[in-house]
């Protein structure tokens, strides 16, 4: 009885959480921690846990990411929750959701190279490696796309660093492990 009451107590909040997390309302998808607290209440983590159980069947999960922010003094201010694919996907699935082989391959090169350079790599160097594979002009457009979609960030000093989207979407340790193996 108590369990069903808990279920109904959460169902309204679950719907709210789905709307907050899935519909894009700003530049960055997902919801900030304080938004979830405000709309779902202090027990928002319980709601997220329950939502995760439901999403599990669909191969999705709610993930906590640290959003880049100038103000790191406010704890929790830059914590964001997003919904991501939980399971490993395949190239066919990536194609199905609109990705191109070149873009995926380009991301593998760009991200791995930045990590191998301890998190910062000169734009020219990344561009030249991409150019070996895709040609100069294509390399340029690829980097532009990756920057626009926040997979990488361009610093004023001409260095590329990993963007928030890479940190949220890519299992970096796994990527490097696989790169080392192939």
């Amino acid at each position: 009885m108590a369990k069903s009451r808990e279920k109904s107590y959460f169902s309204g909040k679950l719907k709210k959480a789905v709307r907050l997390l899935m519909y894009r309302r700003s530049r960055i998808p997902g919801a900030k921690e304080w938004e979830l607290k405000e709309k779902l209440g202090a027990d928002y983590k319980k709601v997220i846990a329950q939502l995760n159980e439901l999403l599990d069947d669909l191969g999705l999960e709610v993930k906590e990411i640290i959003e880049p922010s100038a103000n790191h003094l406010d704890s929790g201010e830059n914590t964001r929750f997003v919904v991501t694919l939980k399971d490993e996907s395949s190239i066919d699935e990536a194609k199905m959701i609109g990705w191109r082989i070149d873009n995926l391959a380009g991301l593998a090169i760009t991200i791995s190279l930045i990590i191998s350079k301890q998190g910062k790599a000169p734009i020219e160097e990344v561009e030249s490696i991409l150019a070996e594979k895709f040609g100069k002009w294509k390399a340029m457009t690829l980097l532009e796309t990756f920057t626009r979609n926040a997979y990488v960030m361009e610093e004023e000093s001409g260095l590329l660093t990993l963007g928030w989207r890479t940190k949220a979407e890519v299992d970096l340790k796994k990527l490097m492990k696989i790169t080392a193996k192939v």
Partner: protein
Amino acid sequence: MERSLKTLEKNLVAFKSKNEQCIDSEALNEITKVIILQDNQLRFQSSKFFIDPETIRFKFRKLSREKLAEVFVSSWHPILELEQLTFRGFLNAFDYWQELLPISERLRRLDIGKPNKAQDIDVKRLNKMGIASEEEFFNKLERLWKELKEKYSTQGKIEYWKFIFDSKFSTTIDRAYLLSFLITNGYVGLTGKGKDLFLIPNNEKKKQNRISFPISISKKDWGQWQSLEKKVTLAGN
């Protein structure tokens, strides 16, 4: 390290005096320090899944695009996000449609004559026409950049309008579009103001912030250039 230790071991029996043995101990101590540093470095690298950038380069050279894509996809969990029309987006769209002229009016302004009957076109044909092919776009960029560099080497800085101009309006637009790509990405420099714009090609991509410089080209501008070109040709003859 191994060789250094073996050398020490080999010579140990020959060290008779206390002084010699002290020097030997000192050498052993220094070798130990190097080993400790190497150990620390290895621990750091393995904790960060460190791979030497050169190894990465080598691996990427030999791997196919498909294999690389596979590597990425196996560690990738894309974010789920549903696009929606926000109130601000709705207002922007409303303003856009309010200001947009009816299609009949726009077609009349473009002066393209009576349109052909709509028909299907397959990707093969689009490729053939150079519309769907990325390779063709990049080749065009390369050719235009080369053309500009050649002209610059003989004529010095080149007038923007003169460079993009072609006897066909569509080709003029095409050249302007390609050139904008080169300018934005630092392959060509743009100087001057208003209608007096000049192009200076760079031999390599120049480090700069991406620039956005809208230049409007109307059929009227193009017509003026066309008549000017005709006059220049007649005067030349």
